[in-house]
């Protein structure tokens, strides 16, 4: 009797797993992933193809402005009360990822504590390109999410960076035996909001909220979104490969952390998102995006912030980890994984 139940259970688990794996597989046909992998392959083959710097910056601007505008326009008649719980989760996750990451990394052999803190900081922070890729993939499959979800970005990004800088200062003060430098969170918040990525996102949000940008959104920012994302993915792929040799100079444990952390963070966020789904009706698409945000690691605005605030940390370690391993894993494995998981869990 017990054996039969066990057998049936196994079979059901098996079915679910196969179902899940086949869903995962179809996710890999997305052109976003293809451009990312194409970029890696080109760079690995020594191709001279380069996306000009001005075009790359323009792509980032276009994507964030588009995400912001849409958010702003739809937030107009949204119930922002719903945003409270997910925003709180985002803040908590951002802080927790950095704290856990700091002690995990510092415990690994060959990892200097400052470098570990900075790396954990980037993995707590958020990648705009990963978020944009997830948005396109959700739209391709007509998965609904609340318009304010992309606006969770700063709620996770900024706390993560602040915590990282704080931990670094505590550590350095302890090391030098002297007094620790004052960290002024307000200054870091202001500095973050002034960065080009968050500036574009917030400008879009405000314009979407207060003005009537429907025509320029529908005629320009929205239709070009997918195309500029493909170019950004290509650039991130090329960059991932080019930064790989920085990783060769640091401990191998960074690679291990960077490959596992995005998925661990994403899955934890998925779980917390699921709780929000049960409690407040947070949409399945929102749960996926929350997981993507948590699983992503900052590659544009985080590094300069940390380089300026934790100068003694070695950028080869944290940039290599985030750009060369973290982002490709977060995009190529993470996004398909969360979508497939949501299909299995929510029956999308």
């Amino acid at each position, binding site marked *: 009797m017990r054996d039969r139940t066990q057998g049936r259970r196994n079979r059901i688990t098996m079915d679910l797993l196969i179902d899940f794996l086949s869903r995962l597989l179809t996710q890999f046909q997305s052109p976003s992933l293809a451009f990312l992998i194409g970029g890696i392959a080109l760079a690995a083959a020594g191709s001279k193809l380069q996306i*000009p710097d001005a075009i790359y910056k323009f792509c980032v601007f276009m994507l964030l402005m588009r995400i912001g505008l849409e958010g702003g326009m739809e937030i107009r008649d949204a119930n922002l009360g719903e945003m409270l719980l997910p925003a709180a989760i985002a803040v908590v996750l951002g802080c927790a990822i950095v704290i856990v990451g700091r002690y995990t990394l510092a415990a690994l052999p060959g990892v200097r504590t400052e470098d570990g803190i900075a790396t954990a900081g980037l993995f707590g922070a958020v990648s705009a390109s990963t978020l944009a890729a997830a948005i396109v993939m959700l739209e391709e499959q007509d998965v609904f999410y609340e318009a304010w979800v992309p606006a969770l970005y700063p709620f996770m990004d900024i706390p993560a960076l602040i915590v990282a800088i704080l931990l670094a200062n505590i550590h350095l003060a302890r090391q030098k035996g002297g007094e620790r430098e004052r960290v002024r969170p307000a200054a870091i918040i202001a500095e973050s909001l002034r960065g080009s990525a968050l500036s574009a996102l917030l400008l879009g949000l405000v314009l979407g909220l207060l003005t009537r940008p429907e025509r320029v959104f529908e005629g320009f920012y929205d239709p070009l979104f997918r195309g500029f994302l493909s170019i950004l993915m290509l650039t991130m792929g090329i960059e991932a490969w080019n930064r790989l040799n920085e990783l060769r100079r640091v401990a191998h444990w960074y690679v291990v952390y960077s490959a596992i952390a995005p998925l661990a963070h994403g899955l934890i966020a998925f779980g917390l998102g699921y709780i929000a789904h049960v409690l407040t009706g947070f949409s399945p698409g929102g749960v996926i995006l929350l997981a993507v945000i948590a699983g992503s690691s900052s590659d544009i605005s985080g590094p*300069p912030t940390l380089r300026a605030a934790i*100068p003694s940390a070695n950028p080869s370690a944290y940039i290599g980890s985030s750009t060369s391993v973290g982002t490709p894993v977060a995009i190529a494995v993470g996004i398909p994984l969360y979508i497939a998981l949501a299909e299995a869990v929510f029956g999308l």
Partner: protein
Amino acid sequence: MSHYKATKVVIITEKLILAKVTKLIEAAGATGYTITPAGGMGSRGVRSTNRAAVIDEFSNVKIEVITGDKQAANRIADEVAEQFFENYSGITYLEEVEILRPHKF
């Protein structure tokens, strides 16, 4: 026109700290400086210009300061090296130049 000796301080470092370096230069009493974009190779690896600078702030800049006051030149070079080059990549050196209008520098 008669010509005068002056000193040029050259600083090659990360764009990220440009604002801090120019503040230091101005504090040292220099009347101006010139900035050019730069890439390079040094003890901290290669820094490229041109290709998509995903992290723009990490490419190099070359800052040149001309001053008639050799002491100020030394001070700028020393202070920049002391304050920044432990943690940021960079080099600094001095050159002798000949200027035309000493009141300008």
